[in-house]
């Protein structure tokens, strides 16, 4: 997010805190894609729990907006609420997945349109929720280490170490993918144009 987008959001937040209904609507519209997708990716794309959590995170933002003390930091504040909600739901889902029948777990088909690595996605979903949140905020949302630490209410050192651990674990899945690719049988020659 660039500087002008930040200041536009801050301006909207200032008006929304002051009770401007239109500004509140517009602010929620602007924040929604970031909040929904961040929550979805942290909880685990492809589950109804993620969709419910995304909706709940939007409500958290709406409920808290009047109490926002620093409108200039609205983006970080909203992501903080979203990740807090997402981590809470992800932890609950992690526990529930131990007792839930397998048939109920994949209740919403998650598909990667470009055929991305399913193995990598699986490895990502197995990371602890907080580690997932760090990875999503740094590698998807594009927050700095400092912003991520603020959003997750932890130190920059924790962000660095969590991301380092996440990289190590995900690198294993990537190596697995590479090995699987290289162990595939060589492609058969295509059909020869015959007469």
């Amino acid at each position: 997010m660039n500087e002008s987008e930040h200041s536009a959001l801050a301006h909207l937040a200032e008006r929304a805190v002051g009770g401007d209904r239109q500004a509140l609507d517009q602010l929620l519209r602007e924040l929604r894609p970031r909040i929904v997708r961040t929550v979805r990716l942290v909880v685990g794309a492809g589950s109804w729990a993620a969709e419910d959590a995304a909706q709940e995170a939007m409500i958290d933002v709406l409920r808290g907006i009047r109490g926002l003390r620093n409108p200039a930091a609205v983006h970080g504040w909203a992501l903080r609420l979203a990740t807090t909600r997402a981590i809470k739901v992800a932890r609950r889902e992690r526990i529930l997945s131990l007792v839930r029948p397998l048939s109920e777990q994949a209740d919403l088909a998650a598909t990667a349109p470009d055929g991305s690595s399913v193995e990598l996605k699986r490895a990502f979903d197995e990371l602890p929720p907080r580690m997932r949140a760090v990875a999503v905020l740094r590698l998807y949302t594009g927050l700095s280490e400092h912003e991520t630490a603020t959003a997750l209410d932890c130190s920059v050192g924790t962000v660095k170490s969590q991301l380092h651990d996440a990289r190590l674990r995900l690198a294993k899945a990537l190596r697995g993918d590479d090995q699987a690719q290289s162990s595939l049988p060589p492609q058969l020659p295509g059909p020869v144009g015959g007469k």
Partner: protein
Amino acid sequence: MTDQAEQRVDDEVGRMLRAFEGPADPRPRQRRRRGKERVRRALLGVTAAAVAVSAVGVSALLLDGKGEGRPAAVSGTQSCTELRAGGRRYVARRVPASAFAVGVPLRGRAVLVCGGTRVPDADVARVVGLGPALALVRPGERGLVYVAVGRCHDAAAETELVACLHKERSAP
């Protein structure tokens, strides 16, 4: 892990996350299909035919001028303050348009009260994440929810209302 290897992991993970990011809105839960699909479809067909026949009848009455006094439809500007559905009374309340998403349409009779006029067979839908006993919406009416009387309908401000609905949904 070298910088180059880290960068590769970051790129691959970033690409994977973008591929799975999904739509910008939370997906509404679909009603799970239960029972015999064929019977359900047949009933749907019969209902659709009945609606079509009655629509033709009402149109004919209106063209004849005998349908005067009966509301034909709700205009976009008419303010509807009340809704009755499933034996419950709902009161229209304003909420920020982005607060709730329109969910699965509800079947069954809903009567809308608009400026003292009763409009039968109004289209209503569930609100994503809220039960129909708590609140309903009308597709196309942004920023308006119909809240069940006795459950949050008297919340003073919009944010209070949203907070109350949120609290009520998780109540047993």
